[in-house]
């Protein structure tokens, strides 16, 4: 048995019921959802928005793609969203282009 499958079978689940989880966290995540909606509305109103109202920034595109992951009915959403927002190349870069990171892989 690999360590990974061992963890998956011996894992603890969340001791709370769904209603308790909602009592504890719903309001916080409701607010985050509305923040996200407002953010996307703001992008629609951008001075350079195209006819569909979609911004052209690759980070916004990546975010729209992640929204589909949230709603595809499968589990493990956090890992899959993080993977979607990751650089999947494997070779080291010739030089570091900057110190910071952008949050989504930049187009080639």
């Amino acid at each position, binding site marked *: 048995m690999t360590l990974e499958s061992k963890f*998956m079978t011996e894992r603890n689940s969340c*001791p*709370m019921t769904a209603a308790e989880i909602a009592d504890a966290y719903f309001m916080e995540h409701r607010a985050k959802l509305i923040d996200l909606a407002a953010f996307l509305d703001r992008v629609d109103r951008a001075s350079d928005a195209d006819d569909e109202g979609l911004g052209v920034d690759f980070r916004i595109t990546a975010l729209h793609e992640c929204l589909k992951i949230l709603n595809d009915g499968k589990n493990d959403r956090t890992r899959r969203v*993080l993977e979607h*927002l990751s*650089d999947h190349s494997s070779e080291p870069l010739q030089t570091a282009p900057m110190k910071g990171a952008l949050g989504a*892989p930049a187009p080639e």
Partner: protein
Amino acid sequence: MKYIDPHIHMVSRTTDDYERMAMAGCVAITEPAFWAGFDRSSPQGFYDYYKQLTDTEPKRAAQYGIRHHCWLCVNPKEAEDAGFAKEVMSIIPDFMDCPNVLGIGEIGLNKNSRNELMILEAHLELALSTNQLVLVHTPHLEDKLKGTRLIMDAIFNAGLQPDRVLIDHVEEHTVSEVLDRGFWAGMTLYPDSKCTPQRAVDILETYGTERLWMNSAGDWGPSDPLSVPKARIEMRRRGHSEDMVRKVTWDNPKTFLSRSPRFRADDD
């Protein structure tokens, strides 16, 4: 209940923070060498920083009953100039015998560049030849997945034992590979932008509590030196046992860090 914060940058925090951490139950910390928010202009700048980590901070912490330990290295954000980084690395052995030094860290990658990787390999060689524990920084955001894999490969290529290495800043997309390959893993709790205390507890529920710890990585940026006790509150709020709380915030860091004979969590 006592706890250990195994990754916090106290050089960037006030003495009030030491007091608040002590009041929340902190009795021991470890402080890896890191990027100060600006590039140091000379090896002398690093010399002074290593002095601060090995001399000033232990005294400041002791006033509040907190045992201070540190890790030394050239951090990956200042490793792109490889010649400069190697010059700085040559002064590290002068400090390795200081009584609060636990090993080499936080080494790793930032943008996954060739020079960063070369300096990482030089540090791994130093750790192997001097039999030191290693604390690893993994890149943030889109660079984390690739960087974590490159780092793990470099550690295996260097011949270090994975159970003497802690790989920090794991998230949901890296934790399972890190544990699967035999390393210890650290979750870094940030008030926003990265892993929150809630998500850290989600990770424990999903992947178990073996070889995992939590830290605040409190530094000069938005961060919370009390995030470890806050994550303990989150575990209790969900109904997890005191055994689990103790394992993640006390037993696990103590077990890994005690591989260095210099680590002291308390008097027992």
